[in-house]
């Protein structure tokens, strides 16, 4: 047993920064990481057992207790809930005979809730032993569990056909569907892989490449919108023994699944973008941080990397350019939303808990193993290839005057055609709704739970300052004009997630509560604001929904929402957004629960609160009238 752990460690040369891989291998071998293995890891890697344990406990897919032969991770994102998740959950519990959050006594089944898996357009989905099962219904759950009871291999349970495109590739063979509804410059099958790296780079200096990207005004597609060319320039400027290009493929924002589709259908484009970034910045280390939920792609992507090496688009003297050496390794995550934040991602790449770092220094100065590091989103990197191919002027001809190019939208929720839409920046919400066949729309969550909930009515009560704070629109909005808002960095920026809710949905009870649960679950716990306030605010919302709320409760939510902005990273700073933006845009939904006649209600129930202690000591409660 010890030998096996030592063998795994030596596979990674006893490198502490590869702890994630080591733990993944131990999981593959025995399903969990036991205490004895922790001790071996600590002594062999020269770190404390606490450092090993804190890493294990941080990630959703790691465990220090035995897990099951079949581990079923059922997605609990909002769209899964809207598509019958409750019945599917019930079916799993009935068929397996256990509750969620437990492992069956015979060790055959383990049921776990899991945050968004990037399958919003085909949920409810479950990851079972690393394979994704989509569009689950109680009927299909029964078939699956019956198969597992017979002891079948999980890959033999993939029912019906594989998904479209590369999802059916021999190295993937999953039932995931791409659902590409509208293509564009990125989602374009007519392209020649590695043409830029192999043919074009040798005529350009790294400085030229940076200038072209800067002239294109390309901004980061992960959501924050930092100018890509500038980031590359900063990275190039900093001295370092090595420089690092990281592709952030940890798309964890509920409602986004565009990176999944990019990596399934256009991995060449993404990897080539990394090579271009490496040439421009002088980087020699390339890392893709792939979320664990997409592990089913790993073999396929590694094969693509090998093909790229064979084509001399990776490796040594790439594209015939002397001393242009760069290679890419794919690092799997293990289930943590916060690892999408670039400094947390880097911590995770170094084999630690994915807690965001204090900034400055920024990753471009001191990133992975303290080397200057450029972290770019999957879509950003893909766009750079097209920019190099066609020039910055071509690129700026798409979009609006402040937002150039296209954006991949992940559309899900109440519409006829959920999926991926590549649209030019400047496209209005109304156009998107028409494209995806959404009717009877009540609200749209733009940018995922950390974004904004916008809607069709009752926004006239907002004063201009409030609106400016939230959306920076060009002028006062009326409800009718609301859907004419345009996706752009100046009006309605987005990382690409759009979840649509029709008029039958209960926005507060279904949607906002689901999002708050998500933030509570995914907080890394480092900042007290993000650790505590989402829970406290959720309890306040529950109070309001129970009918006990008073006007002060709404004011409290708004003022506490400001406090949370002091959190260290974007996750914490935006963790109150589901409540804040729903108050701003749907205040009437709150007000209709508020008690009109009183300004104070604590819901304090003394009889209920003394029951447990009275029962324990064996006495009857006595109440005095004060």
């Amino acid at each position: 047993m010890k030998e096996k752990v030592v063998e795994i460690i030596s596979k990674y040369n006893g490198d502490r920064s590869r702890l994630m891989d080591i733990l993944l291998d131990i999981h593959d071998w025995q399903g969990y990481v036991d205490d004895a293995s922790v001790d071996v890891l600590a002594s062999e890697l020269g770190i404390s057992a606490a450092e090993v344990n804190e890493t294990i406990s941080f990630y959703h897919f790691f465990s220090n207790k035995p897990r099951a032969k079949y581990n079923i991770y059922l997605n609990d994102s909002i769209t899964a809930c809207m598509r019958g998740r409750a019945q599917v959950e019930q079916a799993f519990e009935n068929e397996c005979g256990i509750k969620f959050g437990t492992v069956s006594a015979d060790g055959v089944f383990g049921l776990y809730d899991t945050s968004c898996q990037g399958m919003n357009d085909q949920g409810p989905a479950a990851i079972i032993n690393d394979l994704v099962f989509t569009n689950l219904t109680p009927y299909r759950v029964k078939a699956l569990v019956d198969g597992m009871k017979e002891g079948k291999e999980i890959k033999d349970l993939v029912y019906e056909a594989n998904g479209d495109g590369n999802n059916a590739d021999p190295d993937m063979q999953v039932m995931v569907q791409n659902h590409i509804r509208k293509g564009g410059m990125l989602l374009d099958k007519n392209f020649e892989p590695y043409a830029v790296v192999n043919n074009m780079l040798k005529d350009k200096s790294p400085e030229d490449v940076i200038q072209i990207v800067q002239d294109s005004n390309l901004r980061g597609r992960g959501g924050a919108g930092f100018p890509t060319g500038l980031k590359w320039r900063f990275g190039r400027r900093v001295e370092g023994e090595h420089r690092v290009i990281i592709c952030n493929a940890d798309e964890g924002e509920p409602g986004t699944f565009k990176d999944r589709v990019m990596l399934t259908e256009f991995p060449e484009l993404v990897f080539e973008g990394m090579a271009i970034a490496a040439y421009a910045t002088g980087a020699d280390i390339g890392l893709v941080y792939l979320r664990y939920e997409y592990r089913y792609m790993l073999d396929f992507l590694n094969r693509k990397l090998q093909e790229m090496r064979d084509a001399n688009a990776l490796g040594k003297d790439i594209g015939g350019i002397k001393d242009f050496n760069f290679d890419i390794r794919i690092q799997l995550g293990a289930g943590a939303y916060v690892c999408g934040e670039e400094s947390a991602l880097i911590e995770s790449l170094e084999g630690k808990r994915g807690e965001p770092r204090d900034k400055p220094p920024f990753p471009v100065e001191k990133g992975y193993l303290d080397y200057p590091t450029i972290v770019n989103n999957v879509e950003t990197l893909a766009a750079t290839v097209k920019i190099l191919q066609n020039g910055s002027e071509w690129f700026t001809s798409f979009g609006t005057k402040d937002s150039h190019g296209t954006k991949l939208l992940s559309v899900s929720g109440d519409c006829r055609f959920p999926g991926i839409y590549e649209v030019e920046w400047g496209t209005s919400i109304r156009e998107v709704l028409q494209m995806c066949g959404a009717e009877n729309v009540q609200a749209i969550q733009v940018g995922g739970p950390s974004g904004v909930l916008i809607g069709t009515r009752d926004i006239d009560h907002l004063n201009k300052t409030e609106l400016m704070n939230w959306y920076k629109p060009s002028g006062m909005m009326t409800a009718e004009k609301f859907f004419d808002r345009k996706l752009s960095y100046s009006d309605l920026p987005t990382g690409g997630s759009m979840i649509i809710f029709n008029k039958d949905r209960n926005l507060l009870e279904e949607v906002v509560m689901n999002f708050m649960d998500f933030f509570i679950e995914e907080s890394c716990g480092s900042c007290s604001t993000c650790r505590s306030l989402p829970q406290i605010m959720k309890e306040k919302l529950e109070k309001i929904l129970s009918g006990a709320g008073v006007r002060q409760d709404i004011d409290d939510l708004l003022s506490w929402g400001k406090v949370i902005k002091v959190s260290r990273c974007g996750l914490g700073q935006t963790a109150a957004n589901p409540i804040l933006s729903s108050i701003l845009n749907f205040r009437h939904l709150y007000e209709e629960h508020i008690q009109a006649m009183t300004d104070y209600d604590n819901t304090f129930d003394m009889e209920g609160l003394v029951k447990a202690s009275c029962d324990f000591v064996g006495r009857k409660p006595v109440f005095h009238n004060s």
Partner: protein
Amino acid sequence: MSKKIIATTSLAGCFGCHMSILDIDERILQLIELVEFNKSPVDDIKKFTKQVDIGIIEGGCCNSENVEVLKYFRENCNILVSLGECAIMGGLPAMRNGIPVEECLQEAYLDGPTVSLNKEKILPNDPELPMILEKVFPCHEVVKVDYFLPGCPPRADLIWDALVALVTGNEMDLPYEVVKFD
């Protein structure tokens, strides 16, 4: 101008905040000029004898008696002030909030290393005793509280300034440096 009437009490607190009130030192003589004390540990008046202007609460609520006293204060005071960490956030006693109350009692009376003399495994269950709440609550979650003075304890100067402001009706100067949460 008639004197303002003040009442104070310590609920689930350590009396540190009351000690801090006494830390206003010789200004207590000035205070006596400005106010009259009613129910308070300072003068040992047990029951309100009249309606009071300002009630000052130290400590949160960990048992039924705390709740009753707090409600008694709310009924008899025009303005209620939460004084110090425990009243405002539950403070040190609230550290038990993450532990089920049964486990707390088990440890305190049956399992703890210092209870070996409790051979008959007696639990305090006399009906005269206050009943323990499942959790420790800050005062504003039990009754409406008008003002909060943070600190553990709040500095004497802060208490003094707040009292003077309340009594004279003037606005209080609260520079950033004086607001401390520990």
